């Protein structure tokens, strides 16, 4: 650490430099153009997304948004998978997807259950699926 006594008074620039060292905040802010996170229930881990057929023609996408759009061009993936394959933080992926949905580039399927509690029919389908798959 520098000797406090020899230091010039702290200027705003120096404060910013110090803050930059604490994390990825600045680059993430740039990628998402400063947009805030969508509400918690939107684009959750298990929301399924795919690109609309004509979405590839979209212009003015950031490289990160383009990589997300290309990834989901050929089929459905969950938001978590999009984050996993692109290695982008989940929050960034959620913001990018919300922007793309506003631009009408995505088809979105929300997860179930939307209610507090899963219903019997849904649990029964999960149980049957597990038993069929693993022969149990």
């Amino acid at each position, binding site marked *: 650490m520098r000797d406090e006594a020899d230091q010039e008074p702290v200027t705003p620039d120096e404060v910013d430099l110090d803050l930059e060292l604490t994390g990825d905040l600045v680059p993430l802010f740039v990628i998402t153009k400063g947009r805030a996170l969508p509400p918690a229930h939107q684009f959750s881990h298990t929301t*399924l997304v795919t690109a609309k057929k004509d979405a590839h023609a979209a212009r003015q996408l950031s490289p990160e948004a383009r990589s997300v759009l290309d990834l989901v061009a050929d089929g459905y993936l969950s938001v*978590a998978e999009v984050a996993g394959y692109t290695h982008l933080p989940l929050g960034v992926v959620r913001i990018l997807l919300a922007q793309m949905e506003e631009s009408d580039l995505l088809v979105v399927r929300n*997860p179930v259950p939307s209610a507090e*509690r899963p219903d019997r029919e849904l649990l029964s389908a999960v149980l049957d699926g597990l038993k069929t798959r*693993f022969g149990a």
Partner: protein
Amino acid sequence: MYLDPDVSHAVKILIVGHFGVGKTTCIGSISEIEPLQTEEEITEASEGFDDLSRTPDKVTTTVAMDFGRLTLSESLVLYLFGTPGQERFKEMWESLSRGALGALVLVDPERLQESFSILDLVERFGLTYAIGVNRFDGTTDYPLDEVREALNLAAETPVVACDVRDQQSSAQALITLVQHLMTTLG
């Protein structure tokens, strides 16, 4: 890589436990895709960090979380999220527990005391759960009644022995959880 185009329902189950209990192994043994990771930003109080004078009240850290996928029918897919059990990740718990069917809590019989705080979290977020007692290399089966007693579990909470390296064994633990979820519907 892609989901069946007719998949319209996505559900999730949390695989919960302390560090090293076998969450990732469990997910890897039953996932149909190579397990992936999400990176999530969480904010936490700076307490416990060395240099309190220079850090702000909250700091942002990145938590990596493993997850896997299981297609259960043409229309239904299940995601399994390995959720770290520390109190400081409760922000992540909030989003993950929302809409989760339930939780499979993995415990190491030799380190049961590390599972208390995890059970607290699971209960606080209102998740119905089953306990999977993971069998580690070189250990013998542990009496499940002792685990139940040590963890002070409700009588109806299922406790199953499992070896998370084994696909069938992991699947059986999940099946036990889902059967339990059905009984709690009343």
